[in-house]
């Protein structure tokens, strides 16, 4: 019963929209529900990147620690967003901190479990990676605009 409701949550998350049912079932096998209180870290820079989060509610600040200035928020994700792709890329370590700004509920998917499933089923891996590429491309574009510092002169 619990697995069925978890499968429903996985299926209904926007990141997995349009995934085939058999793939949803496999992904559900790597997933669990998690909750973070305000101020709690989801990821910490330098630590092993073992998981992927699909946010269901709440807000999470992506932070970088700047010497002399402390933690700076450089991004924000929330309901329907995906957080963390370092579990896909060697050496599997986080490059930023992520901290709950509001009480946050998420699906946590085990990265090692996912990589094993992808190795066995390349079609599943391709489907998930296609979705990741779209997210990464969007975030990269937003980051480019931030780097341009467009409001400096206007």
């Amino acid at each position: 019963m619990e697995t069925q409701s978890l499968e429903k949550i996985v299926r209904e998350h926007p990141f997995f929209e349009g995934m085939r049912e058999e793939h949803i079932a496999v992904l559900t096998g790597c997933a669990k529900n998690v909750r973070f209180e305000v101020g709690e870290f989801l990821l910490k820079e330098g630590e092993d990147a073992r998981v992927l989060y699909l946010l269901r509610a709440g807000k999470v600040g992506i932070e970088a620690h700047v010497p002399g200035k402390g933690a700076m928020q450089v991004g924000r994700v929330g309901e329907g967003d995906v957080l963390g792709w370092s579990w896909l890329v060697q050496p599997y370590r986080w490059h930023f901190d992520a901290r709950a700004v509001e009480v946050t509920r998420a699906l946590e998917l085990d990265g090692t479990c996912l990589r094993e499933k992808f190795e066995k089923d390349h079609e599943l891996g391709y489907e998930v990676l296609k979705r990741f590429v779209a997210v990464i491309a969007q975030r990269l574009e937003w980051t480019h605009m931030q780097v341009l510092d467009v409001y400096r002169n206007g």
Partner: protein
Amino acid sequence: MILETAKEGARLMRDPMVPECLRISRVVRETHDTFTLELDVGERSGGFSFTPGQFNMLYLFGAGEVPISISGDPGEPGRLIHTIRAAGTVTRAMASIQGGGQLGVRGPYGQGWPMEEAKGHDVLLMAGGIGLAPLRPAIYHILRHRDWFGRVVVLYGTRTPADVLFSRELEKWRGRLDVSLHATVDRGGREWRGHVGVVTSLLPLVKFEPADTVAMLCGPEIMMRFGARDLVARGIPQESMFLSMERNMKCAIGFCGHCQYGPSFVCKDGPVYRMDQVTPLLNVREI
């Protein structure tokens, strides 16, 4: 003799190149580099009427003249308000002005926001940086006549929390149940509770009916270019999108050609343009 002087005065007042001297009644420091000047228009009959989005030429005697959008409430013509960023020689000199000083004012000039066209539709306002100032009169107008419009969405992006303009008003507007307002910064400390990211990253957070929405964008040109592209992707037709362009101006009445933008003059034909009028120009480099 007095009558002749008065007539001469009236003639000069009608000459669009002659500034009218107005006293600065109030100075508000908005951020470290941005300030608001309120000018006393008490002796003008009917006050200073303008359309949201229009600008004035402000003359600081001894320093020079610059075009500045009007940032006050068009429903309060007795208060003429400009919000200015100290970015060049003249505006930096203006930043040191105190209440009681004087400025020369010519205007109002240019084409403003399409407030009539927006009636009966959802309205989405996207502002970046100092671009919130030219949009503020439109927000005042919409809130004063709230039932004329459908959903109202205000998206505002700036560099850091310390650069947020009109923060008290933003808080007030965000508290309204009939306005959806989101503010974002490019980077912020842990104390910042708003969004973090570029202004276009706010779009997935808001609801509006694309086919029935009038969008007004004001900010750095690159922000407007990306913002307009994303709004088109959301389904807003180019004909329903309006941008406020900025160029160096001199005469402000379409004579000198200083602000030529393709086949038009920003001072006279703009600063507010319908998106489809400027789309070909937005992608031309070095214009």
